[in-house]
């Protein structure tokens, strides 16, 4: 019997009856059970009708939300650009946006998390939010891919796009690009050409 309960004159628990949606064994022909289920059925019908009513959208709500969000952007750390004596920087968010877009231009590839770190552990501890030092940099990019190509092929293509974009667009030389396949996309080509071995993505 349920915690918060009420018994029908026939002794059946109303809470159980409504949760099960059918009379308990022995109550199949019970008029009390049948009436109580009919009552719930009428409520269900009202729910169906309410779901069928078309509601009015609030067209500007998403835009309003984004106006607020963009007053609180998180640009991330500064990433050094140019020669050793230069004082040029790009925010990590802007750079990773470029890398994700570069990966997204490949068919059957969708980019997720993207991070920029020093290729090797820095000699000194970096404070959170401190600019990255002028050292060789590593990009870690997570992607979801379809099965039109093998994972090593996709990883190589993504790596090439990221390196090209970094060099051509912002003049940033990346030492290493780690590509991790974190998911498979359903859509895209369905010719099943790739064997998707899942290895050699690093």
């Amino acid at each position, binding site marked *: 019997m349920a915690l918060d309960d009420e018994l029908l004159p026939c002794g059946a628990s109303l809470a159980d009856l409504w949760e099960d*949606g059918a009379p308990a064994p022995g109550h199949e022909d019970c008029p009390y059970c049948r009436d109580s289920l009919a009552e719930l059925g009428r409520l269900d019908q009202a*729910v169906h009708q309410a779901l069928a009513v078309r509601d009015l959208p609030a067209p500007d709500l998403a835009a309003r939300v*984004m106006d607020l969000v963009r007053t609180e952007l998180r640009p991330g750390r500064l990433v050094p650009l140019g020669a050793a004596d230069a004082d040029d920087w790009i925010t990590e968010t802007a750079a990773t946006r470029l890398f994700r877009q570069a990966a997204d231009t490949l068919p059957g590839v969708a980019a997720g998390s993207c991070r920029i770190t020093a290729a090797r552990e820095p000699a000194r501890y970096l404070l959170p939010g401190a600019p990255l030092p002028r050292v060789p940099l590593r990009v870690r990019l997570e992607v979801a891919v379809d099965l039109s190509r093998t994972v090593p092929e996709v990883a190589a293509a993504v790596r090439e796009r990221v390196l090209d974009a970094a060099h051509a667009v912002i003049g940033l030389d990346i030492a290493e690009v780690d590509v991790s396949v974190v998911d498979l996309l359903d859509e895209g080509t369905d010719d099943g050409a790739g064997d998707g071995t899942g290895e050699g993505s690093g």
Partner: protein
Amino acid sequence: MSDEQPGAAPPGRPDAAPAARADAPAAPVREDDLLVARASEGDDEAFEILVRRHTPDLLRLARRLLGSDAEAEDAVQDAYVSAWRRLPEFRRTAAFSTWMYRIVTNRCLNVLRARRPTQPLESMTVEPAAPEYLSSPARAAESAASAEALHRALAGLTPEQRACWVLREFHGLTYDEIAAAVGIGEPAVRGRIFRARRYLTEAMATWR
């Protein structure tokens, strides 16, 4: 991955599930995960896609809980701003939609709790009116009248009963997910849904 199925069919009530599913978000969960990862790293464009994708459903939830368009829009807006701030700590153990349901429900419960004591008893017979969004002239009269009666009846529930019942019947959440969204245990969820059904079946019988 059970976290990612907010609309799992309720046991024993096969008639209720399809209706709820019809209204639940048809969001591609997998794609959400990529966007959430991007947004949590500061990609506002990824966040905007999530906002545009989930706003219709969250707004419907807030309207059903609050019965007021203006308050519902404020609740959803506040929930998104809060989500944006908390995204870097979001552990992705739940689907983004489930997480947002939780934040919006929480906001709405706070509004409802703050509203209740100041509302004089006699006003309950006329207030709150059915939400403005149901007043469209293009509606099907029968459905709209029934929906209005139902929304008026919802005002007679406690905030928690209302939240549990709406999440269950309109949005197809599991008891488990409702417990997390409302911040109470699963037996308490079952109890509140039963009380809500008890009240609403009587209210709807009067209407007819």
